[in-house]
């Protein structure tokens, strides 16, 4: 194993501050392998010590380069390999994990070197427990991608040969307008769940969020089951993790997979008509009542006091 190097695997996305940060902690030389466009490789050259680029992908999906990325990593046998938790980031990490027969660790909190060993904290089993784990062999880590890297180029981009898997072609991309919300920066977040009966009732919550001077969020079913709110706005293990000063959960039952996303919130308020809803054991203030009555009253009380 090459204990001076740590590698990052990049899937056509310059959002890589999280990857670079973890890799810097674990190795003195950070080598980036970039599958995707040249501009992404150029961006990485501002943050990594070496950049290996697999060439323009053309019509191939970035996932088609996963075996080529894995072959490069396996040959170098670095101490750590870090990739993003995004769908294509996980595809590159999967190929790396397979090539090294090494577990891909997720839910990562902190990373450190203890002597020569990589030690991470990670949240396991949907977040019910926190483990401190030492890795014997190459540590393969999936971390939050972070923000785009930028600055002055420090490394040259080296183009390396790497075949894409044949047979898959991207035929169409329909860009989606990103909602452009930054829930992470909001002081107050008001979230709504399946207790809401109709799409038009979202307006009630928009008003409440406005009265709090906060942002509107939701549980996963409202973003992925019925599409009443954009996917960028759902909170939880597969959505956003946030730590606002105040979190107000309206018509949300309080399942583990949702609540793990707001564990670090300052104050949590729940509004739910079922007094036995699990959310009531995970909040600071719980209003037992019908959201259709409580929400307008709360909006009025907030406005009245202003």
């Amino acid at each position: 194993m090459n204990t001076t190097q740590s590698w990052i695997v990049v899937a056509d996305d310059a959002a890589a501050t999280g990857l670079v940060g973890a890799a810097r902690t674990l190795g003195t030389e950070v080598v980036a392998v970039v599958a995707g466009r040249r501009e992404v490789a150029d961006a990485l050259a501002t943050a990594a010590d070496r950049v290996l680029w697999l060439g323009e992908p053309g019509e191939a999906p970035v996932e088609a380069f996963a075996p080529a990325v894995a072959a490069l990593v396996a040959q170098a046998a670095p101490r750590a390999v870090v990739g993003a938790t995004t769908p294509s980031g996980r595809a590159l990490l999967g190929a790396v994990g397979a090539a090294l027969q090494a577990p891909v660790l997720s839910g990562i909190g902190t990373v450190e070197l203890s002597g020569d060993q990589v030690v991470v904290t990670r949240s396991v089993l949907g977040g019910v427990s926190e483990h401190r784990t030492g890795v014997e062999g190459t540590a393969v880590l999936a971390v939050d991608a972070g923000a785009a890297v930028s600055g002055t180029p420090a490394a040259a981009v080296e183009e390396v040969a790497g075949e894409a898997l044949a047979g898959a072609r991207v035929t169409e991309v329909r860009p989606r307008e990103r909602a452009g919300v930054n829930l992470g920066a909001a002081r107050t977040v008001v979230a709504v769940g399946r207790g809401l009966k109709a799409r038009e009732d979202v307006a009630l919550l928009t008003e409440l969020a406005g009265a709090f001077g906060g942002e509107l969020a939701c549980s996963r079913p409202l973003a992925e089951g019925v599409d009443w709110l954009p996917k960028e706005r759902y909170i939880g293990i597969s959505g956003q993790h946030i730590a606002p000063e105040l979190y107000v959960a309206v018509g949300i039952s309080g399942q583990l997979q949702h609540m793990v996303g707001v564990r670090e919130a300052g104050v949590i308020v729940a509004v739910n008509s079922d007094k036995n809803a699990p959310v009531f054991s995970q909040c600071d203030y719980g209003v037992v009542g019908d959201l259709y009555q409580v929400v307008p009253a709360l909006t009025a009380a907030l406005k009245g006091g202003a």
Partner: protein
Amino acid sequence: MKIVVAYKWAPNPQDADVRPDGTVDLSRAKAAVSEYDPVAFELARRLADATAGEVIGLSVGAASIDTPLARKAALSRGLDRLVLVADDALADADGTRLAAVLAAAVRAIGDVDVVLAGDSSIDVAAGQVPLTLAGELGWLGLASVSRVEAADGGLVVERDLPGGTTVLAVAGPVVLAATADAVVPKVAGMKDILAAAKKPTEVLALDGLDVPAPGATLTTLSTAKPGGGDRQATVIDGADPAAAAAQLVGALRQAGAL
């Protein structure tokens, strides 16, 4: 088309007992087909019906994944047959080990065109196993698949990615992990459950499969119960909404949360 559905028989950690030292007791948590895997069953069935193909369920894990109830739960969801690798040597297996065993089973099944999987499992929830499986097989692996259809001997695959919807033409073997809302799975009826009893299940011996040795090992150095989960709620009766709202706003002001 020969389609394999990889599904997990797993407990919901919501029902786990977490001790103060962070160790977890799952004995009260009942296992079931992992929450989002029925989406993969449904996509597989539709694809098989459109191509006069076959759907084979595949799950690997501890011996407890093979019970009459577990078999029925899988076989009643539109499968033609079931293949299991159930061995206690896999009880605490990490995702790469599970993927390696799944890959060996896919090779043993033979001539598989597509593996369909769920978005993420209810217990591990990393969305990693299908993509590591693709790596083990040397196949293309695509996550966030929202639609899949047969076309021109291959597949048209639609993906819901952060940047937008992406459409691909895919020829050749592929592992696809579905989004949670790709389709609404059919609920198994009495007829499906009765038919399940007649469908074949094959149990593959772990020893008979060609699974590579682990290349890295994990040691748990310590465990902890995460903070923030237990809060002492002040309960406010919402029967009089205006009074409840006033009480809450007052309390939040007092706490400095407004």
